[in-house]
């Protein structure tokens, strides 16, 4: 079988002083040219998972458990910051919801991209500048020569997002991690940005991890989906199987909460309650404090077990219709 670009096995960590893991036994794999979407409510650990992969968590306060990351055939421990730092910005890159996370307000955008190129490539200043110009054009910035000298605040939100993407992709990374890159944008601009990422992916063959809480975005771009709840992957599978055959009560609750654009309007289902804070997560199945099917057995943690080929679900009662309809 084709070797995947990225394999994450049992990633687990907590922050110093916390009594529970923020992220617990998260595993997934990503192939070249594929998009893995990590979806879940806010506070479910999506961003910290991404930051851990990029080696961007505060080193002095994060405590990793076992677990390993294999990137392009090389295996390393999640806490191996030095090794990860060498790849960051070069072989793997990240973009954020808020572009100013990566952009410096005091520098011209063109120079910032050129600098990112020079840092990782053995090329002269002129070549870096040329690459920056090329990238600005690629991400659809009109009149790149003129915009090269603009400061971030002189651009609109959508344009800044494009500049951040240009900077992230300037060194042709093999892996792009995008943390809610379109959440703050209008839908028409979001459509442009998603299309841009897809085009660049098709061109370079990079693997993309897209973090989002929007199931619509997931349906649009995902190859595979990991549904995360309270630091755990509760369901994992191909986009098709997740949308056509969702299994986990949390996935079902999320999908049922989304108002539909077509068909009859009916009362929305909800996921009662909220994501518990770290330290207050129930033992066993962490969803049990909100799950309408919770039973005593849920005090033990369910395995992320395969239901259909490639489709894994962490619920004692999966498939629900077979285990529950009889008793209902």
């Amino acid at each position, binding site marked *: 079988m084709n070797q995947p670009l990225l394999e994450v096995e049992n990633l687990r960590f907590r922050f110093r002083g916390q009594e529970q893991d923020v992220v617990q036994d998260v595993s997934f794999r990503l192939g070249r040219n594929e998009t893995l979407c990590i979806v879940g409510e806010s506070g479910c650990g999506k961003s910290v998972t991404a930051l851990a992969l990029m080696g961007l968590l505060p080193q002095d306060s994060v405590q990793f458990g076992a677990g390993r990351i294999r990137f392009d055939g090389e295996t390393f421990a999640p806490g191996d910051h030095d090794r990860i730092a060498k790849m960051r910005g070069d072989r793997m890159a990240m973009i954020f919801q808020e572009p100013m996370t990566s952009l410096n307000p005091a520098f011209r955008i063109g120079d910032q991209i050129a600098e990112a190129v020079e840092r990782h490539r053995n090329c002269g200043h002129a070549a870096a500048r040329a690459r920056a110009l090329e990238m600005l054009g690629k991400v659809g910035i009109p009149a790149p020569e003129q915009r090269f000298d603009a400061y971030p605040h002189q651009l609109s939100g959508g344009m800044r997002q494009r500049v951040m993407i240009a900077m992230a992709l300037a060194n042709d990374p093999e892996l792009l991690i995008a943390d809610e890159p379109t959440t703050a944008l209008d*839908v*028409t601009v979001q459509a442009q940005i998603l299309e841009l990422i897809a085009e660049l992916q098709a061109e370079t063959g990079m693997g993309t991890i897209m973090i989002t809480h929007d199931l619509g975005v997931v349906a649009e771009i995902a190859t595979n989906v990991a549904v995360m709840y309270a630091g755990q992957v509760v369901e994992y599978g191909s986009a098709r199987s997740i949308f056509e055959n969702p299994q986990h009560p949390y996935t079902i609750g999320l999908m049922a909460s989304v108002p539909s654009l077509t068909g009859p309007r009916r009362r929305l289902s909800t996921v009662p309650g909220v994501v518990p804070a770290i330290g207050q997560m129930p033992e066993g199945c962490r969803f049990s404090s909100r799950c309408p099917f919770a039973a005593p057995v849920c005090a033990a943690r369910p395995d992320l077990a395969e239901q259909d080929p490639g489709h894994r679900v962490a619920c004692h009662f999966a498939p629900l219709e077979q285990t529950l309809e009889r008793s209902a």
Partner: protein
Amino acid sequence: MTDLILKADGLKKHFQVGGGFMAETKTVRAVDGVSIEVRRGETFAIVGESGCGKSTLARLLMRLLEPTEGAIEFDGRDIAGIRGRDLRELRRDMQFVFQDPFSSLNPRMSVGKLVGEPIETHRPELSRTQRRQEVARLLRTVGLRPEHADRYPHEFSGGQRQRIGIARALASNPRLVIGDEPVSALDVSVQAQVVNLLHDLKSKLDMTLVIIAHDLAVIRHMSDRVAVMYLGQVVESGPTDEIFAAPRHPYTLALLSAIPEPVHGRERTRIALSGETPSPASPPSGCRFHTRCPFAREDCATRVPELRVAANETRVACHYWEEIAATRPKAGLTPAAARSEGAQRRFALYEAATLRQTDRPETASNAGATT
């Protein structure tokens, strides 16, 4: 008697900005000639992208801002220029729910105070005990518990804070509530809780609701009629079902086609818009949408389209909507593909089980309470 509760006619709000040393003053045409009619008892929605003037319009309707031009009638009375006592009375009848549950509540006030304050202002005849009872009743109405009155905003989740904001808005027994993105900051699961709550309150309390949002799925779910705004103006308005089934204005078409839907493998034709919304300080000439409209013709840059009747109470501000519609017989969205049979049974089970849970309205889980 008219069935209109709120009516705006040619409403404008222009802001003067800049004008410091050597700087040129610019006029930001945030709202630039909006006419809408809200019927008693309906949910009226205003939708559009960032900066199109939704919040400014809401503030005008509430008289939190004074219009530059135009008329506003509430219950048949002109309110565009009222002050003092009349304005206070208006504040009682018309209330506001804000987007951001984190900054719209004073962190130093207990929930009891936050909800009690508008009662004190608008119903001074109530005694202290009656007021406390009223606070308890309002908290229950929005799915919180009376003992929450002693706590402070930071102790609550986003959804709960939005419930507090709603309780505050209901305290004066308003006839109209305007919500400016009341659910936009919430996760979908919690958003659904608040959407359901607003729906229940509206029918229980016999209110009219004006909802502002950029999320079209939320709008479709909640509203009876909708107005689509672009750059300070209404470009299309009418019954929600009609607009979603047969959008006519190119901007509405583009907006609808841009929404990613949570359905796998749906084929759809996207109407891509080039560029971004121009600044309301220098709106394009003619049809304001012409710089981004994929159907624009030469004269769109010079001729201003009027909002004119299209069909079934729908109005459209486009010179060429008829011709565009003729070339696009299926502009509306097609129904979602079916889920697997097993999945459908799972959804039914889930719905039944959560209903059993939330039928007890004061359970912690229903209120989104963490404790």
